[in-house]
């Protein structure tokens, strides 16, 4: 109960940091979708690019997040503002599930359906936008869902380089050896992850092709 009291006493700051957190996650996820979905489509259509693209995304995924933040710190324009840097790093991490699910979703569309569409004279873009993407959308969105949940967790580490977000409480709590402060960051972060998961799940059901 101490935690709740602490959160209530510091509610303006909790709210502020939650919004910062949301901003980091939201913006990076948006970038990751804008980059990842087209890349996924590209490698679904050109199987030769599949291995190198997925391998690169995989390698990025294996870099420890704290190290990646550190590596990027000296980069000129990025290093000036740590939130830019955090957004770039989070975007990179979110890429893999989005690229992979876009690829899997599109490759998973029934070959007979694609052949029929092509045979009846749909152009490649009509085929993509009217057939392949609508049929792959729920697989793609479940990739986005995974990406968001990962980002909410990773974004707490961005506080280590001063990018703000709920990680501030966690690091402060660790320094102060005070569980209340740690939980004041961890609980809202967990709730954010859950809400985002529910939200995308809802979107998935709305968009799901029959």
């Amino acid at each position, binding site marked *: 109960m101490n935690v709740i009291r602490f959160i209530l006493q510091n509610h303006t700051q909790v709210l502020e940091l939650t919004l910062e957190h949301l901003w980091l996650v939201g913006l990076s996820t948006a970038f990751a979708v804008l980059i990842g979905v087209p890349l996924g489509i590209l490698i679904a259509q050109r199987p030769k690019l599949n291995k190198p693209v997925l391998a690169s995304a995989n390698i990025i995924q294996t870099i420890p997040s704290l190290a990646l933040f550190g590596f990027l710190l000296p980069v000129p324009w990025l290093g000036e503002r740590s939130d830019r840097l955090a957004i770039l790093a989070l975007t990179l991490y979110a890429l893999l599930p989005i690229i992979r699910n876009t690829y899997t979703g599109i490759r998973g569309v029934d070959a007979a359906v694609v*052949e029929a569409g092509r045979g009846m004279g749909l152009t490649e873009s009509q085929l993509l936008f009217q057939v392949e993407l609508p049929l792959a959308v729920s697989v793609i969105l479940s990739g986005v869902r995974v990406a968001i949940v990962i980002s909410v967790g990773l974004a707490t580490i961005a506080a280590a380089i001063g990018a703000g977000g709920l990680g501030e409480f966690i690091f402060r709590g660790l320094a102060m050896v005070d569980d209340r402060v740690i939980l004041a960051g961890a609980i809202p972060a967990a709730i954010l992850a859950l809400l985002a998961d529910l939200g995308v799940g809802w979107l998935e059901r709305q968009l799901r092709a*029959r």
Partner: protein
Amino acid sequence: MLVLLGRSGSGKTTTLKLVNRLVTPSSGEIRVNAESNAQVDVIRLRRRIGYVIQDVGLFPHFTVERNIGLVPKVEGWPADRIRDRVQELLHLVGLAPELAARYPQQLSGGQRQRVGVARALAADPEILLMDEPFGALDPLTRDELQREFLSLQQRLHKTVVFVTHDLREALRLGSRIALMEAGKLVTVLAPQEFLKSSDPWASAYVRAFENGDRAGNRGTS
């Protein structure tokens, strides 16, 4: 109606796909309506050729109406004309008008293939390519669809290229039967000539067919 007959892997489907350029020839030229099909725009070419495959390939996220009306729609027909055309086609292939609002997975196999035929006919193509369209259906439904397709063809007079490995179907539907073996065209014959042909591949086919028939009769008696 030309039937391409042959065993699996004999090149029937490839031949069919050469016509609408789903397969590109490594050499030579394919003429469609006396015009090399490599010269015309591939999208235009395909929209003038109806295409029906065994797996039907209906768009699962579209209703029957949108499935049938897709080519007219991308061709820019007005909505009311598409609606009328869909109703006309449903009637033509023997489906009830209220099926227009259904989704493919709510239909039986036979109904799906009827929708497949209706979709291929939507923009009134001169040529129809059919790749074992009735192959996955049960014998009764297949018989029904073959019969209806014959009477449909008597009204529509399309140029049809029909792929099958079933001699009975070939004899029933074809005005000419083109026998293929190992990627080569063996012979082209009228159904009656086919049964009497001295060509070794043709007679082998007829023999296998008769054997199958006898075995079938023994089974039922």
